[in-house]
């Protein structure tokens, strides 16, 4: 049995009066994209910094490939990280920035050219980073993460500031990397993005673990059957007798949980009820997520 790729055990980080990460125990598996979700201030970035040895946990441990990050011999060859789009000197060219990183891990100079081409920064490789747009900056950060051809990728908000084309590019890149058997942990607050990208979700709220589930399970747990009938009251009681939880929706349709489409159709048939619409409604990740994090939002706007 190989050591888990990323393992957090009771990871806790307390600042003076605030607990940023609270007893987090999570294992991140290879071969899939793990989405790391949470509202702002929920501890995602602090957790990633602990994994990378940038921040020292107050309690607990974070290990990568079975050991603390600081003990990895040539970390960029094992772990690629995008922590902060500002993690570069604005006066340096993209090429010099990547070259300095490559040299520190004894990676060949040719890798710099390869990743520059891979992320599509060829035309601006010798420009100072100062003039880069947010999107170009993200591409540079991703190039840095890919330099060592690592098996593990930690990306904090990689699509922040990217245009739709860039977002699709990141999504396809992450998918491809995971399909090659690599471990991909990607944080985001863009739920719609996660829905298309991640296979597995780790959800944080106020530093605590709220969910560690396959994407399909989370969405499934929050999905339902929608049925519309001119004889709604009759159908509703029949469905309740069959074990469904029924709610009346605003437009008069019924929302049924606990039964699938086939069962609802059969119940209606046996009750002799006419059905005008029957279908499955998959909860959006956004709805599932809001339900999970509802009570754990640290910064909330006051009601208007």
């Amino acid at each position, binding site marked *: 049995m190989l050591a888990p790729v990323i393992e957090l055990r009771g990871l806790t980080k307390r600042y003076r009066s605030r607990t940023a990460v609270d007893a987090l125990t999570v294992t991140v598996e290879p071969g899939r994209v793990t989405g790391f979700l949470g509202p702002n201030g929920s501890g995602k970035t602090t957790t990633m910094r602990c994994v990378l*040895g*940038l921040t020292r946990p107050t309690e607990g441990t974070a290990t990568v490939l079975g050991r603390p990050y600081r003990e990895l011999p040539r970390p960029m*060859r094992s772990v690629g990280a995008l922590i902060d789009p500002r993690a570069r*000197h604005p006066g340096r060219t993209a090429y010099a920035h990547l070259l300095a990183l490559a040299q*520190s891990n*004894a990676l060949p100079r040719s890798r710099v050219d390869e990743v520059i081409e891979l992320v599509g920064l060829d035309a601006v490789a010798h420009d100072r980073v100062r003039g880069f747009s947010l999107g170009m900056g993200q591409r540079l950060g991703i190039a840095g993460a890919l330099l060592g051809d690592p098996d593990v990728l930690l990306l904090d908000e990689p699509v922040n500031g990217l245009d739709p084309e860039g977002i699709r590019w990141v999504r396809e890149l992450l998918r491809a990397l995971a399909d090659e058997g690599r471990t991909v942990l990607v944080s985001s607050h863009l739920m719609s993005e996660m829905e298309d990208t991640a296979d597995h979700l780790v959800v944080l709220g106020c530093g605590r673990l709220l969910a560690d589930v396959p994407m399909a399970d989370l969405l499934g747990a929050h999905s339902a059957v929608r049925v519309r009938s001119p004889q709604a009251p009759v159908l509703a009681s029949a469905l309740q007798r069959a074990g469904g939880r029924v709610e009346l929706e605003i437009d008069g349709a019924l929302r049924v949980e606990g039964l699938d489409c086939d069962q609802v159709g059969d119940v209606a048939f046996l009750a002799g009820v006419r059905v005008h619409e029957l279908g499955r409604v998959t909860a959006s990740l956004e709805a599932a997520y809001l339900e999970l994090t509802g009570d754990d939002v640290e910064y909330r706007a006051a009601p208007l």
Partner: protein
Amino acid sequence: MSRRAPFSAVVASEWTKLRSVRSTWWCTALYLAVVGTGGWFGAAITQSAPRADIAVSSALTGFGFGQVLVVVLGVLAVTAEFRTGMVLASLTAVPGRGRLLLAKTVVVATWTVVLTAVLAVFCWFAASRLTAVEGGVPLTDPGVLRQLGLQVAAATLTAVLAVGLGALLRSSAGALGTALGAVLVLPPVLAIVGSELSVRIARALPVFRVGDEAFFSVQTSWQSGLVVLGGWAAVAWVLGAVLLSRRDV
């Protein structure tokens, strides 16, 4: 895979970082200009000197102010990482923080040695052309070589002190203020005050040295001057390295 990247790889990386930002080249150009012109004028106004090493000493005067640029170079090499956020990428690539600081120090110190050695030879050249000394100013004169060697040593220790203070204080303004206060501002002030206590404090400060003299401060022997400067550099560097390793970034 199982072995760490050699230290030379980290040094190469730090050299790439140093040479790829403009501030390095501004500091280098100004250092050469200030010390070079200072040396030429220092030699030109010293029409004659009784000994070769005294002639060279006058030509080294430009280092008194020029070493400010060494301080700026050393401080910025560290604090720019914190100011820009680059330190996150640097420490992710090289998690051994002491190793990273050591590589940075080696690069800054080596660059300072090279520049200072070139300037010292230029100052000797100015003295040999412009200052009349009986028997000339041969480069091989032990007195001359000692002055030039002391200058290279003093500038290099100043660079190490600056790097250490940068790691210790992390802010450009804080580290530059502290360093310049200790090497350039406080020593002459204390020397002017002249009380027994102020003289004693002045002797304990890492004042800029010009050849074998303390610049605008209470004079001390070059041996004790180097020991004081070296002590400050060592303490600042070690404290900087320890705090860098302990603190979160």
